[in-house]
């Protein structure tokens, strides 16, 4: 009996130490996807909070399983379960169900609130007009991501609708990504910014993020899109200062000069017949 009480106490203490220690370690650990944008920060925070909430529960269930596995083995129970409690206990069941329900509901409420605050307006865009060039960093800069088998290209409607094969963004400027596809379903993933949006033909998927750290990043396709899906990634996406960004825009404008007359007018989705005409992206 004493043996078993000691073992119970040890398991309990180990659980408390593990739960608290784990939560503290999580608070100081690097949480993906990092802090490279406001969206990424909010995703990091959500992941951190979920992990903080999940870890004690997870380790508690694990400790209970461990208890039944090991403690029952080394210190077999002396007292038998009473006959009335052998097949169930309404109070315990109610407490368990209510507890899990409360935990789940609070997670759902938190998720909904976080969704409403941090990733508003993501999804299908309702406006057909593109945004003007932003006059302040709070006004979003519109950048279109065109997915096609198997390369992303980008259009900057605020800068004459130039098209590029490299994504460069100004730092601390709110960016509104408009993601669309010319053929099959792709998914645009700028991991460091916490941006992930499916590119669906004839659909405009909008997601907003403000990059906060200058650097070179990776963008990749995260929806299986055919032969070169695994290679539809680019390690040269950049977040640069505002002055570097204008210099880059000028450079790209010069490079695009020979084809500017062929590019179609900027639009949120591109359609056309299967036979391409000048200025129209075929479907």
């Amino acid at each position, binding site marked *: 009996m004493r043996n078993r009480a000691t073992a119970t106490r040890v398991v309990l203490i180990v659980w408390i130490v593990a739960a608290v220690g784990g939560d503290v370690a999580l608070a100081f650990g690097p949480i993906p996807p990092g802090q490279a944008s406001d969206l990424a920060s909010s995703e990091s925070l959500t992941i951190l909070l979920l992990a903080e909430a999940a870890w004690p529960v997870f380790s508690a269930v694990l400790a209970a399983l461990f208890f039944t596995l090991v403690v029952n083995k080394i210190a077999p129970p002396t007292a038998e379960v009473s006959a009335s409690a052998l097949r169930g206990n309404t109070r315990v069941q109610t407490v368990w169900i209510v507890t899990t329900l409360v935990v789940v509901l609070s997670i759902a409420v938190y998720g909904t609130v976080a969704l409403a605050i941090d990733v508003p307006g993501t999804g299908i865009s309702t406006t057909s007009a593109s945004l003007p060039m932003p006059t302040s960093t709070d006004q979003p800069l519109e950048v279109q991501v065109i997915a096609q088998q198997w390369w992303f290209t980008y259009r900057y409607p605020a800068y004459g609708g130039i098209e590029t094969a490299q994504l460069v963004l100004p730092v601390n400027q709110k960016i509104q990504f408009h993601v669309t596809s010319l053929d099959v379903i792709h998914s645009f993933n700028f991991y460091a910014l916490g941006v992930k949006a499916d590119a669906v033909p004839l659909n405009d998927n909008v997601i907003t993020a403000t990059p906060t750290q200058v650097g070179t990043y990776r963008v990749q396709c995260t929806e299986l899109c055919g032969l070169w899906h695994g290679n539809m990634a680019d390690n040269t996406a950049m977040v640069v200062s505002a002055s570097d960004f204008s210099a880059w825009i000028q450079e790209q404008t010069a490079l695009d000069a020979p084809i500017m007359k062929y590019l179609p007018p900027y639009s949120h989705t591109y359609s056309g017949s299967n036979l*391409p005409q000048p200025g129209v992206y075929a479907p």
Partner: protein
Amino acid sequence: MRSRIWILVAGVVVAGVLVGFFVTRFLNPTPEQITATSTSATIQGKPVVNFTLTTVGTIGYGPHPAWVSYLPTTYLKVPAGAVVHITIDQQDSPSGLRNPYFSLVRGTVNNEMTVNGKVMQALDPTTPAHTFTVPDLGVSVPLEGISGSATQNVVEFDFVVPDQKGLFRWQCFVPCGAGTLYGNGGPMQTLGYMAGELQVG
């Protein structure tokens, strides 16, 4: 018991043969690779190597005789740090680009190509029959389709490959897989036709 063991052994042998077939014939059929021919010329101090490729509207043999294809193969091998000079005999008629952006010549030396001896920087997006594009190297060259009585357009360009070893995919961006959805199935998604690997080093 002995007969059961023999049946087991036979089963293992059959399974082994099937797995061997899968690995050798399907998983990675060792492709025929063509190696660039080296020259004595240099550009910017880097050695120049040559390739000659042909594009045809119908390959005429193999399991898909009606498919468009690059010839002789799309598995290319070049030395690291070289300037690759590619000559393409373009013998296919135009299909036009879905995204006109790819009618721009990019990533080649001076962002230029030579079509039948004429230096060009872009094409009308309705005219390309194919493109030669290596996305990871930023190289993209549209290949003008033949029109009128012409039987081929000779397109030449140079681009620099990195100094490190690497395997790069290359493909065509013209939806030229006739009869498939968006023209992007069939040959566009099959290695050896409109998709290939460029091995550096």
